[in-house]
């Protein structure tokens, strides 16, 4: 069987070019990238915060009786509960609860998605950072303290830089997971890449081209992310 050039051109014409069909994919892709990027920022910042709170609570074992100790203990307890709930429930359900219950008065779907995925990813990133922090040699921490460095100075100069190095592979995975997980945004009617492909199918009545096209776009972005993280890993190891 031979496929003529004309047939390929017609195929692309009918599935992607006609009536600007491709815009469903590119607009959706743009939404997917925005949601991923801002959710990543929230997840990263909140994840580090949660991890530090939990590690500090364990390291310092502060007393409930002092104001700062009370705060650290309380925040650590809240972090634990938060991480348990987020990791123990499906992201889709979290998204629907945010949309239909918690943020019912917020009509910007993009922000609902960003908040949901950001808060979700934070719980996973917190666990990744925590394991990275705990893998730092106790001896190096003692050495820093023995020289007079404070707990916070030791954290910022010795523990955190090494923790980032330790958890970079797991961290890369989490970013990729987050990116792909935004494909459930369609559940709340946000037209991301996946939902864009769905709408396109309702126009052309052909499922394969849009779905494969969107899958290819996801794949290319994941490959790029993998390269970025490999490059980062190479940069910060001194072996």
């Amino acid at each position, binding site marked *: 069987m031979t496929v003529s050039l004309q047939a390929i051109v017609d195929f692309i014409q009918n599935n992607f070019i006609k009536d600007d069909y491709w815009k469903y994919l590119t607009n959706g892709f743009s939404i997917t990238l925005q949601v991923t990027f801002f959710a990543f920022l929230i997840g990263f910042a909140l994840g580090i915060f949660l991890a530090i709170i939990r590690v500090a609570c364990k390291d310092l074992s502060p007393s409930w009786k002092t104001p700062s100790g009370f705060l650290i203990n309380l925040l650590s307890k809240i972090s634990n509960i938060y991480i348990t709930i987020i990791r123990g429930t499906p992201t889709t359900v979290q998204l629907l609860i945010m949309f239909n219950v918690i943020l019912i008065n917020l009509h910007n779907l993009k922000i609902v998605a960003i908040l949901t995925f950001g808060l979700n990813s934070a719980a996973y990133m917190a666990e990744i950072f925590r394991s990275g922090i705990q893998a730092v040699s106790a001896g190096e921490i003692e050495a820093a303290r023995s*020289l007079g460095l404070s707990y916070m100075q030791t954290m910022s100069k010795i523990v955190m830089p090494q923790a980032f190095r330790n958890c970079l592979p797991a961290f890369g995975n989490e970013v990729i997971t987050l990116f792909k997980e935004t494909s459930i945004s369609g559940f709340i009617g946000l037209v991301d890449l996946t939902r864009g492909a769905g709408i396109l199918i309702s126009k052309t009545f052909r499922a394969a081209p849009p779905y494969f096209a969107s899958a290819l776009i996801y794949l290319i972005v994941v490959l790029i992310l993998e390269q970025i993280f490999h490059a980062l890993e190479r940069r910060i190891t001194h072996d």
Partner: protein
Amino acid sequence: MIKIRNLYKNFDKLEVLRGVNLEIKPSEKVVIIGPSGSGKSTMLRCMNLLEKPTSGEIIFKDQVINDSHVDINKVRENMGMVFQQFNLFSNLNVLENLTLAPVMRHRLNKDEAETKAMELLKRIGLPEKVKNYPNQLSGGQQQRIAIARALMMDPDLLLFDEPTSALDPEMVGEVLELMTELAQAGMTMAVVTHEMGFARQVANRILFIDEGMIVEESYDPNDFFDNPQEERTQQFLSKIL
């Protein structure tokens, strides 16, 4: 320089130190020996509060340092420690390892710290390693740099916790040589070690610790090794010499 008064330390139900009293005077070199599990490392680690005493007092330069009002970081700036596992900062190169503490603690500015670091590296014979990372160095080199890192703070007292126990035999010499040089320069030192030759040569006092107590104390190292008084000391020395 430092006084230990009636020091007790428990780990849960285990009594590791049971009433230790000790005073170390300026430029004394005190070598602490004893079987493993005797509490000698714990005693050393109590001196800079890496271990918190269960009861008793640690008095450094006339200040009770295990009091909750004391800024322990300030105290530790004047008390260096050298560890069995070297514990150089693996994310920093040699120069950064040396300059981190004096700069962070505002002892020296960056330029002064780097000048001082280069001087120390020359003194220990490793100036060419300045940009290397710890995992690119031998154990002996790492330990000499760890000693230099402690010296960067101009400590009044140096604590050595089995500094040669993790080294390959051929590297023990270079570290002991540096420690001997420091001793001759007048540094106050407390050394937990199994190097009896070093103890004989450098110590002006030897402590034998067993089961959390100082069993025997001698101001004459040669006499201590040749004529140990206590039966427990005799048993220990007969096994290791």
